[in-house]
């Protein structure tokens, strides 16, 4: 807060303004108390010896998970098809059936573009989590319509919902992400780590903002080295960056730039052994061929190269320092693909609902996750790595005529050897407008909070029960802090 001199309070208006500032001050104080607890807890959390990694795959724009996981009992499919026809209803015959080991009196299938996910589910490596979203308190339809208790601010807004998913504290201003807070807590297990526990393949994001832990960004080809600058010129440039700076922005910029130069070389050396495309038994898809289309069209995969670099960084991160690796115990990765905001052109239109923009994105997701799982198996780290999806929100169940609009609760995927796969978790929403799960516009009221989803992952990652409430301050508002999928 800036110190500033206000004129004497002269009006009610100014008094309210002052009061509002006081409220901000309180919020900031709360946040710093939380951070203090995190710092104290970090010491207690240092008794970790194995390697584990979390990989967030963010589906930017809001994935229409209504078409990722579909009901296959005829009557339920008919409900689905009636509302989603003609532009969005996937033909029943095209749906890829799955056979969960648990029974919830429903039957399900996957989008026809996802045969690889079907395989992974059948192998018990993939779990499905139904109707999850941002919540401040558990919420029924009746409560939603009556306006109490509180619901998250700015529902259906991209920027706000992305931030709320990534902070997992929807009712507070976005300061830190839950990945960042986990990193603050667990950084002590690897005090001499040459790179941050937090790595992003997709630039700055809220998920990986910690109070103290820094974020390391790499490209899909590794660290970017300086080009055209070497020898004494590079030394001078680095020396200028290493000067002391009073100005905080200069200080921060200089720190990143110097870190970039210093760490880049180190990192590229560490990942060099996995640089060959043939290193991976199942190659990561660099391009995707549009599924079920004639003639097929090929497009570049944004996700495949990101996941390939994640796999390489896991290999290097896990490898002992003596073997030229980083000898890390914990890593968190963030990947992202965009294009899910399909208000229009979600499918080419009636009769072609299995193909088009959404199908292409799901094919990219399916093939990317498949290659990633096979890569982890090849490294012998399948049980040590858990990947999961997240997205702004689901999308409206009814079509707008060309696609779907911003929704709320959505279904998600959790992948890895430690995952209790071939199971579904949570409750599939009743696919009906004005049904028990509907806000009234085909936007599902989440039955599970992102806090529960992420606390389950964080627990597996090593955040102990005593600290869980510090990382997820709203978690105690929900009855099941651990959903049991991993």
């Amino acid at each position, binding site marked *: 807060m*800036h110190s*500033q001199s206000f004129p004497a309070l002269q009006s009610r208006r100014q008094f309210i*303004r002052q009061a*509002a*500032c006081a409220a*901000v001050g*309180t*919020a*900031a104080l709360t946040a710093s108390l939380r951070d203090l607890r995190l710092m104290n807890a970090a010491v207690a959390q240092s008794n970790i010896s194995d390697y584990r990694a979390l990989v967030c795959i963010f589906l930017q724009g809001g994935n229409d998970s209504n078409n990722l996981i579909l009901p296959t009992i005829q009557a339920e499919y008919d409900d689905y098809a009636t509302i989603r026809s003609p532009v969005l209803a996937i033909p029943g015959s095209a749906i890829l059936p799955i056979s969960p080991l648990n029974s919830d009196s429903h039957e399900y299938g996957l989008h026809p573009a996802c045969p690889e996910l079907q395989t992974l589910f059948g192998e018990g490596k993939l779990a499905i989590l139904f109707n999850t979203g941002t919540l401040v308190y558990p919420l029924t339809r009746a409560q939603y319509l009556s306006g109490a208790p509180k619901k998250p*601010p*700015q*529902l259906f807004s991209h*920027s706000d919902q992305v931030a709320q998913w990534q902070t997992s504290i929807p009712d507070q*201003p*976005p*300061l830190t992400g839950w990945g*960042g807070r986990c990193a603050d807590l667990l950084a002590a297990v690897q005090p001499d780590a040459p790179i941050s526990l937090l790595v992003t393949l997709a*630039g*700055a994001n809220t998920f990986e*903002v*910690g*109070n103290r*832990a*820094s*974020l*390391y*960004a*790499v*490209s899909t080809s590794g*660290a*970017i*080295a*300086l*080009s*055209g*600058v070497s020898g*004494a*010129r590079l030394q*001078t*440039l680095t*020396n*200028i*960056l290493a*000067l002391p*700076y*009073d*100005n*905080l*922005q*200069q*200080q*921060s*910029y200089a*720190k*990143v*730039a110097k*870190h*970039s130069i210093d*760490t*880049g070389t180190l990192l590229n050396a560490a990942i060099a052994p996995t640089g060959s495309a043939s290193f991976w038994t199942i190659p990561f898809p660099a391009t995707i061929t549009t599924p079920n289309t004639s003639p097929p069209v090929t497009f570049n995969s944004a996700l495949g190269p990101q996941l390939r670099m994640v796999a390489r960084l896991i290999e290097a991160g896990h490898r002992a320092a003596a073997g030229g690796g980083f000898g890390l115990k914990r890593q968190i990765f963030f990947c992202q693909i965009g294009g899910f905001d399909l208000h229009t052109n979600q499918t080419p239109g009636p009769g072609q609902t299995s193909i088009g923009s959404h199908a292409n994105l799901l094919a990219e997701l399916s093939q990317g996750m498949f290659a990633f799982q096979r890569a982890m198996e090849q490294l012998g780290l399948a049980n040590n790595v858990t990947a999961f999806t997240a997205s702004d929100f689901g999308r409206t169940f009814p079509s707008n005529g060309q696609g779907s609009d911003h929704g709320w609760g959505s279904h998600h995927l959790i992948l890895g050897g430690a995952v209790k796969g071939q199971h579904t978790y949570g409750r599939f929403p009743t696919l009906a407008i004005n049904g028990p799960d509907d806000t009234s516009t085909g936007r599902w009221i989440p039955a599970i909070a992102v806090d529960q989803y992420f606390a389950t992952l964080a627990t597996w990652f090593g955040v102990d029960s005593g600290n869980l409430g510090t990382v997820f301050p709203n978690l105690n508002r929900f009855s099941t802090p651990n959903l049991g999928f991993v």
Partner: protein
Amino acid sequence: MWPDGTLVMDSQGNLIPTYNQDVIMGFASAFTGWGYYQPNQANGRLPTNFGPPANYTNPMVLVPFHHDLGSKLLLENVVLPPAWGSQADPSSTYFDTYGTADLRQALDSIFSHANVGPFICRQLIQRLVTSHPSRDYLYRVVQAFNENGSGGRGDLQAVLKAILLDPEARSSAAGAQTTFGKQREPLLRATATARAFPPPAALTGSYNQNGSRVVAVSTAGSHRLNNGDVVFLSFTDTSGQPAPASQSYSVTVNGPASFTVNDPALSSGTYTQSPATSISNMVTGTVVVTNVITVNISGHALVPGTPVYLTFLSGGASNGLFQAIWTTANSFAAATAQNNSSSGSALMAKLAGGGYIQRGTTNTISLPIPHGFKPGDRVWVNFASGTAADGAYIVETVPDPKRFTVTAATSVNQTFRGVTVYPLIPPPLVRSGNVLVRLSTWNFGSTDSSLTQTPLYSPTVFNFFFPDYMFPGALGAAGLTTPEFQLTSDTEVALQMNFLAGGLLNNAGNTNGLSSFTSGSGAVALDLGPWMTPANTADAGIPALVDVLATLLTGGSLSPSAKALIVAYVASTARFPYSTPPTATQMRERVRSVVHLLVTSPDFTIQR
């Protein structure tokens, strides 16, 4: 928001939302019915067709039949009433004005909202002065936004004045605060460098093309260019021919005031003519014996059966129309009446990279460069996508130098890329006129993967930076918003430094001080030449050179330590050999080394 940017809260400290989903739906309804520009109906009423072709230059037009006639909830509980009486009657002109009034009132609802001042002004301050303005500063600027002194709201001139003349922008006490300043966003680091070292003004000159694809340019003064430099040439013909395409060219230098470029409409190669030769005719699927002319032009993209006009520059073959009967990727062959052996160089006119918009049977083909056609000319057109048929067409109309229309056999509406045009007429090879030589092409292209930012191409509708972004570490811990730090990851910082180095340290051949972003491709030209004097670049002159360039680039905020490091590095004959008198290369190397270290320094990157 309060006028100082703090958020409005209720008595329990909960944020009060400015709008909810109902308001979003209200605005969406108010904006219904607007589409691309199209003319009104003959009776002057607004149009009824909701599917006009894309038009990105004229203002959008309302199609009242597609406008929501219900009520609309806007901001601050304002409700626009539903269409009433004649407003809901399509035969009435009030039907037209109702929807137009909805749009005006919806825009007014946004513009008059109390949030707009603090929202816009905060971001303007962040872009222009400092990333984390105090509430007092923002409040003062918002006052100017809300009321410019003569009853006007939203007067940006008054706002800019308030921002730039505020004590928080100008006082040395404010500037000395450790929280003050802003990061120059990556693009502005490049443009600030370019502005500091502007290239010479455009050169006038003349051009002359004389029977080949080579266009010779003579400039009115020394052009200072080097082989391979990229410049933008604007041609004006004075010989009664279509002028060569005005676009970027890579030059071949002949002398201080002359260079040549190649006509981009012409592909060149070689040919061999062989009498009575056996050849597989891929059109008929038979092997025939005939006089054959085989042409090697890489990437010709002709298919068997395509007619092509060929010009032969040497070897004696006759120019004219031929039909390709055999093709490979980089060669094709045609039958010829001439029965002698010969060989030489050949030219083929080919205009690639076009697109088409077909409406009914009128197909408008657009090309990246001027085609020079007139109505009645014959062309062969290949369409890579859509249902338009490949074939010979007559040019019907020429709406502008880069477009022409042809008549299609089948009526359909479609728009596709991937058009290649082969003129079936002799290309203009003898022409002359005037030319303007610009050193910057402004052809920046996508720089997402090099500069981490592409001009006018932010990744989301929220522009490049979120105003509330806090960078983890010292800045975040201090509670400072620093939007531009969103592009300050390890990867991005390295890319940005490489981009700047590419603009300054490139162009090994040209030693007179000209260089350019992006990496010498001529996009934005720089000229270090005026600084390349012996007085500036001798060891003894380097400290003063660093001072004056630091004033130019950092407003004099370069720290003495950074200056000392730069001077120590550059003022060294061991690293930068220096003869008496110094060569241009030696002076250039020293000046650009100083500039490079300045623009990668934190003192330049963070503007205070």
